[in-house]
């Protein structure tokens, strides 16, 4: 437990000094959002399209930043140093919490911007925020694990999106569906299926990652 | 074109491919077996 917290703190400290991941992820989100907004123009898209666009922006922005945390360890050759002092599961969880915070920060910026620029009318904030909150666990859990895998491979950048897309697709599909429902209905029960799926996905992917992380990390 | 023929042709192409694949693998396995026999490694073959 203590190790998880220490690794998390260390990554925050490092990030605070370089601001690499946070810059990459925020700029990516803002650039794609404005690109989407320009190309749509004054046309008001349906909630279905908007929900999909929102998740596509969220997904690809997180793809630009989530892998950084492991790639940095490999590229600065600190991975071995860390390996000498830490248990694998605490490394995974420490990095997972860091990515979780990164995603929450991204959403804090992205959600108000998206609602304002794209004229996205959320009827039930309860469903919307709950979707975001639960979805984050799945995104960060799967993303962190795939980041660990690709940090050991030779071509890192392009591979991350290729590998994480099939793994994170359930989050994307249920997330889009739940977001659409947030814009259409007020009752929480309407999005029950999606939220359950997101929750189950988050739990399973994190448990599987903790079990499998050993094999990625230990040579 | 008669749809029956389309179905038949597609299937034939696939099956020819699969049998070619089978045949090639079989040949490779035979070659390997021979090589191993020459090295007297047969006791390891279980």
């Amino acid at each position, binding site marked *: 437990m203590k190790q998880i917290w220490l690794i998390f703190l260390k990554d925050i400290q490092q990030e605070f000094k370089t601001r690499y991941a946070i810059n990459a992820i925020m700029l990516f989100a803002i650039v794609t959002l404005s690109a989407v907004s320009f190309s749509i123009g004054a046309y008001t898209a349906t909630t279905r399209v908007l929900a999909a666009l929102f998740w596509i922006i969220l997904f690809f922005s997180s793809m630009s930043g989530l892998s950084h945390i492991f790639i940095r360890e490999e590229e600065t050759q600190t991975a071995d140093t860390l390996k000498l002092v830490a248990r694998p599961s605490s490394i995974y969880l420490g990095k997972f919490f860091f990515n979780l915070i990164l995603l929450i920060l991204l959403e804090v910026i992205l959600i108000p911007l998206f609602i304002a620029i794209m004229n996205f009318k959320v009827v039930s904030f309860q469903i919307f925020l709950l979707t975001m909150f639960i979805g984050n666990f799945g995104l960060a859990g*799967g993303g962190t*694990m*795939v980041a660990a*895998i*690709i940090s*050991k*491979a*030779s*071509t890192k950048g392009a*591979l991350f999106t*290729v*590998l994480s*897309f*099939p*793994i994170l*697709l*359930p989050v994307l*599909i*249920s997330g889009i*569906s739940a977001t659409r429902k947030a814009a259409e209905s007020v009752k929480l029960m309407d999005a029950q*299926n*999606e939220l359950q*799926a997101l929750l*189950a*996905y988050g739990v*399973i*992917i994190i448990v*599987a*990652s903790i079990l*499998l992380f050993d*094999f*990625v990390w230990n*040579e | 074109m*008669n*749809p*029956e023929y*389309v*179905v*038949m042709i*597609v*299937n034939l192409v*696939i099956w020819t491919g*699969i049998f070619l*694949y*089978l045949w090639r*693998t*079989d040949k*490779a*396995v035979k070659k*390997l*077996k021979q*090589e*191993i026999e020459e*090295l007297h*490694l047969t006791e*390891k*073959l279980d």
Partner: protein
Amino acid sequence: MSKLWKIILYIGLSLIIIGAFVWAPLEPKILKEYTRIFYFHVPVAWICVLFFLIAAYYSFQFLRTKDLLYDAYAKISNELGILFAILATVTGSIWAKVTWGSFWNWDPRETSIFILLLIYGAYFSLRSAVEQEDRRARLAAVYSLLAFVTVPFFVFVVPRIYFSLHPDPVINTQGKIHLELRQRVVFFSSLIFHTVLYLWLFQMRKTQVKLQMILRLYKENKMLEE
């Protein structure tokens, strides 16, 4: 595989071809002449799912034992899996073109096979990006298992969100239209014989990599003794 089995397999496959094209009646409402493709398309699609499961099993075995032979088995089952996934996609989209009017419709089953293709593709791009053998084996096995745990979600989530065009009731015995007896006989024997054929192919590839592994170990031992 003994001679006898080979003969049984060849005769069975020939009977299935004859059965599919001559003996079994056509389904008159939706499929018409394209009923025949059903006897070949479904086994291929089933096989590529089967190889995906086999690959997950061997990946697990590899992580348990760290024996590179299991990694090789997982690799060849994924190779065969991607081959059959492509075949199923091609035959399926030809079929889709003539029955539903377009090559691709994002029907749940098309979505599933597409996801399988994505996973297989990702698996091989991961393998090609890692040079060191044991590391490649570990990463690939972990990725296989990670993909494997997400599969239930596709089964659960996808059908709820996309509606199906597949002729489910034709296959599903509880559905509206039952398969006729002759259709059922041809379909299930086709399924069984195809499975046997493809597993035989798999078995042969397995022997091949096993022999290669033995040869390599032998050479390595000789080098160590020097």
